[in-house]
């Protein structure tokens, strides 16, 4: 990013290749719309290009990038386009080849988990997506959200706890 900041804007392609997939996944589970997620990811990189001189090299690039992405999403949401209705289908869900004890095995479980995630309040969903899909450490999430690390620890735990409660309730293993 330092090279991009210094004017080597072509190097932004490398950053795009490295970070576009986690960004798209993050946006997808915030908006439930693949095309919108893709648009928001592109917009994030255009803003990185536009505001590159405001990046401070001594800070975490990932945290800065995702802060830009978060602003892009919030601008999008403030125009009343935060989320579309989540399609209630299992199409497109993929299963993994991991051992059975390392995954939720069935597509039905994936669909239920997706519904449970969609039902989380946006603030909880957002912090959990940062931890799970953006692979951000607590310290980095605190930097993105501009809050204390202790607050992040509590928020991530509560979000994961609530997701689990909702998932097992949908699966009929727990009272909702």
């Amino acid at each position, binding site marked *: 990013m330092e090279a991009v900041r210094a004017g080597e804007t072509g190097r932004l*392609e490398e950053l795009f290749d490295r970070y576009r997939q986690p960004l798209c996944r993050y946006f997808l589970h915030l908006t439930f719309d693949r095309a919108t997620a893709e648009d928001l990811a*592109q917009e994030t990189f255009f803003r990185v290009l536009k505001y590159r001189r405001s990046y401070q090299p001594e800070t975490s690039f990932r945290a800065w990038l995702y802060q830009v992405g978060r602003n892009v999403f919030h601008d999008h949401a403030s125009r009343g386009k935060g989320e579309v209705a989540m399609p209630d289908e299992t199409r497109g869900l993929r299963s993994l080849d991991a051992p059975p004890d390392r995954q939720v095995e069935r597509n039905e479980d994936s669909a239920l988990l997706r519904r449970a995630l969609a039902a989380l309040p946006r603030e909880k969903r957002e912090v959990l997506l940062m931890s799970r899909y953006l692979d951000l450490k607590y310290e980095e999430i605190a930097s993105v959200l501009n809050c204390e690390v202790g607050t992040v620890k509590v928020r991530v735990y509560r979000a994961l706890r609530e997701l689990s409660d909702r998932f097992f309730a949908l699966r009929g293993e727990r009272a909702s």
Partner: protein
Amino acid sequence: MTCEQLRQQLAEYLAERLDADEREAAAAHLASCAGCRAEAAELGEVWRGMESLPEGAPGAGARKRFVEVLRAYQAGQAAGPVHTMPRRAWGWAPRAAVAASLLVMGALGGRYLTPPRTAGEAGDVAQLRGQVESLRQLVTLALLEEQSPSARLRGVTYAYQMRQPDREVRQALLYAVNRDSNVNVRLSAVDALGKLAGDPTVRQALAEAIPAQDSPLVQVALIDVLVDLRETNAAPALRALAQNAQANEAARQRAAWGLEKLEASQ
């Protein structure tokens, strides 16, 4: 490690982001606490299950579109100024106006930030607030006349922060969109004008700016704003751009996308 500490580290533990000491402490606690072990197993199933959810992998065209816009941006930067904004003969005056206005704004701002005590004072404050807003508009106009792109960018930022830019500021922003030599200034001016969605003249001018642009990046920004505003009057301009074989590929694709969105919103 206590149960509470373990809970707060659980996501990092499941993500394998803990350092060796922290991981060892968590494992030791889990080995000795059946309650935490059960919770870690349950939340771990959910955590791992999230891996099976859709990835939202970008489509094949996404990278191509991004690279084309990036190339267009680089070409625009390399080409340097393409237009020259006409300068007023009194070249030194804008700087003096900015300096004087900032001084006055500071003095007036200091007064009206103090809470009024009487109805009379409240009226004075309203009047002063109006004067500060007028001065802010003057500063903005002066900055937009500056030679330096960074000063003009500051002018656009001032305009962006205004609640209700007057007609002259709006026209200066539209002038910047169409004629400024610097792509960043033009992009920022598009953003600032996007806030003035209630003004049909601005919407019309933004639509008319599309064919006049030589920068695909600005064309894409204009298209995005007009689609956000659901400005169906922009459809002919988007259609013309989408069908123009000489136009930049990324801008043409974005125009086709915008046209589709506008038609769907009708």
